[in-house]
């Protein structure tokens, strides 16, 4: 929802980044305010996923220029864990499997690191157990998944639900969902989308990164941005997503090429 005079959560100015010397982001601009849901769409290789990883602080990407402010802080100065503790959350496209670490322990350690940041006491296992069972409802997840190793042997849908469960526990100010819809069947997609809708509030913001319009049938964005060749080349309301769906990305790419040409 668009809220009058809402706090600016994320402000990105002319962000450029490269991986192993290859420029991927070529000047991204974006402003996200509390309460808003933004969708970033674009063809494969346009830089959408890179953008999400750069925001989360992935070490493989080098920021070469521009500025990112998160809740007024210089985000680019922070370590990945500091970004997480400050309230930025990335739901991974491919969540990692971590054999030997129980999901419950992992969730508790993550939760307590956020609490510590907020100046709160760490929550003991007993209270945490109760909390996590409550949050399981958000994604209708079977409690049996808590005692298993993190994501190990989980199906695609279970992994994505586990990501949303983590988001529910960490209650971030900004949730970035990187292709959360990829590899999900329609039932799993609905459950994940309902989970995200429950978590969205006037206090936080979401960025949905997606290739397809499908997810946006279930999570309605306030803004849709089109990314191509490392830049956001078009922004609009949710209708832009429908236009993309019916016309494909070709016209966008053509437009991008023209724009570059006219520069």
């Amino acid at each position, binding site marked *: 929802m668009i809220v009058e005079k809402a706090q600016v959560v994320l402000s990105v100015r002319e962000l450029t980044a490269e991986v192993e010397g290859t420029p991927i982001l070529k000047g991204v601009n974006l402003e996200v305010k509390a309460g808003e849901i933004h969708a970033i769409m674009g063809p494969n290789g346009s830089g959408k996923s890179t953008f999400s990883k750069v925001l989360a602080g992935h070490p493989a990407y080098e920021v070469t220029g521009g500025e990112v402010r998160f809740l007024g802080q210089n985000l680019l100065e922070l370590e990945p*864990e500091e970004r*997480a503790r400050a309230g930025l959350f990335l739901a991974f496209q491919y969540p990692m499997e*971590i054999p*030997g*670490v129980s999901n419950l322990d*992992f969730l508790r350690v*993550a939760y307590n690191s956020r609490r510590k940041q907020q100046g709160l006491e760490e929550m003991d296992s007993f209270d945490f157990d109760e909390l996590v069972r409550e949050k399981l409802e958000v994604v209708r997840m079977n409690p049996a998944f808590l005692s298993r190793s993190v994501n190990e042997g989980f199906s695609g849908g279970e992994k994505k639900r586990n990501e949303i469960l983590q988001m529910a526990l960490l209650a971030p100010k900004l949730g970035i969902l990187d292709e959360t819809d990829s590899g999900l069947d329609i039932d799993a997609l609905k459950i994940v989308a309902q989970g995200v809708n429950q978590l969205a509030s006037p206090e936080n913001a979401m960025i949905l990164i997606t290739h397809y319009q499908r997810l946006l049938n279930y999570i309605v964005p306030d803004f849709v941005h089109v990314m191509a060749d490392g830049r956001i080349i078009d922004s609009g309301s949710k209708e832009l997503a429908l236009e993309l769906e019916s016309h494909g990305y070709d016209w966008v790419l053509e437009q991008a090429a023209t724009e570059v040409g006219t520069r």
Partner: protein
Amino acid sequence: MSIQVSPMPIPNPDEVSLKSALTDRDPYLTELLNQCQGLSIQLLLEPESISWIQELRDRAAAWVRQCILPTTKDEEWRFTDMSFLKQLTFRALPQRLELAASAVAPLTLSEAAHSRLVFVDGVYAPTLSSVASLPDELVISNLAGLPLAYRSRVRDYLATAQGAAEVFTALNTSGLIDVAVVWVPKHLIVETPIHLLFISTASGTPTISQPRCLVVAESGSSVTLIEDYLNQANIESPEEGEAEVGEAVYFTNAVTEICLEAGAQVNHTRIERESPAAFHIGKSAITQARNSRYTCNAITLGAKLSRHNLEVFQHGEQTETTLNGLVTINSQQTTDTHSVIALNYPHGTSTQLHKCIIADQAHAVFNGKILVPQSAQLTNAGQLNRNLLLSPRARVDTKPQLEITADNVKCTHGATISQLDKEEVFYLQSRGLDATAAHNLLINAFATEIINKLPVASLRQTLIAAVSHQHL
């Protein structure tokens, strides 16, 4: 095909004397032998027992005089350089240091509070031991405390396992002064875990001690053992006393023989957490009769240089052998695990998982031999060695060695070498864990797979904490 398990027993001294020109070939080894032989049997035993033990010692000593210490030119010692050892002169202590019960208390296990034998520098410490919670039928003691009938029975088992002629095993036998004996009579199921604690008191001058164990599990019996090697300095100040612990230079040369009779079950945990400058050579020689089940959980954390020779010999059909190993080392430690599983009969099963965590400039060696001769049809043997290298200068030499001549068997083996996965670290960081906590969690997860197999909860916690502390 060459089977390098040195199956011969220790040769007879008469035969040895014929070859006297070949004795005392290695002056360093001779000096070590003289030190060990200098310790006499101080136990209150009847003359017959003293006499057969002395005879066993002499025979082993005569054999050792013909041996030389292994060098990296020996195939079995290719990756493990013992030449450091020769730079030091080890003395055998005639008397052990008295340790207060309170000093040992931090090392005891709550699950084995009254099922414990303690040996200090290889010598039995009755005041530190307690076996009150164990069933009366169980025979557990040092040699002198054994019921008379068992003293002669011990003779039929002691130093009889294959591989007794291996130089360090024979050195141990040549200086044998006492034995920790656990004898489980027929069909007795011992629920309480038994803690066999071997403490070295070495601090200043380099010393050698040679602990010895004999375990006999009679048919249909079951027992859980925890064999534990460490230095007393580890006890007093595990945290702040590290510099001091580092100075404790000593050599532990341990031998344990475990004999499983038909249908017996032994769950054997072996923990080597000697001080960082120590040398540790350990032999576990296991013989398994038909339908027996043996599990070994070998955890290696300590010593500057350590070697575990784990040898399992099958003496009947349908045996089950499970070997779990965890090596976790840093700085300049070297740890060598040489295991042998000799499956000689049909329908045997063996499963082996050996994991190593190697940091700094440490060096791990794994050689896993599995012998499946023609007689061992329908064997099912699996082996996996997984290594986690935490630094660019960490090193591992791994060698699965399957020698199979039977044609109707299932044998698999594999070895993996990896580093901490950067994507996994980032995933954890993105959830708020700092880099150190993320590394720690992943290292612990790697170790936990083995540590969780240990039968005693308090030990699992201690070891997980030790692994974390080691790789901080």
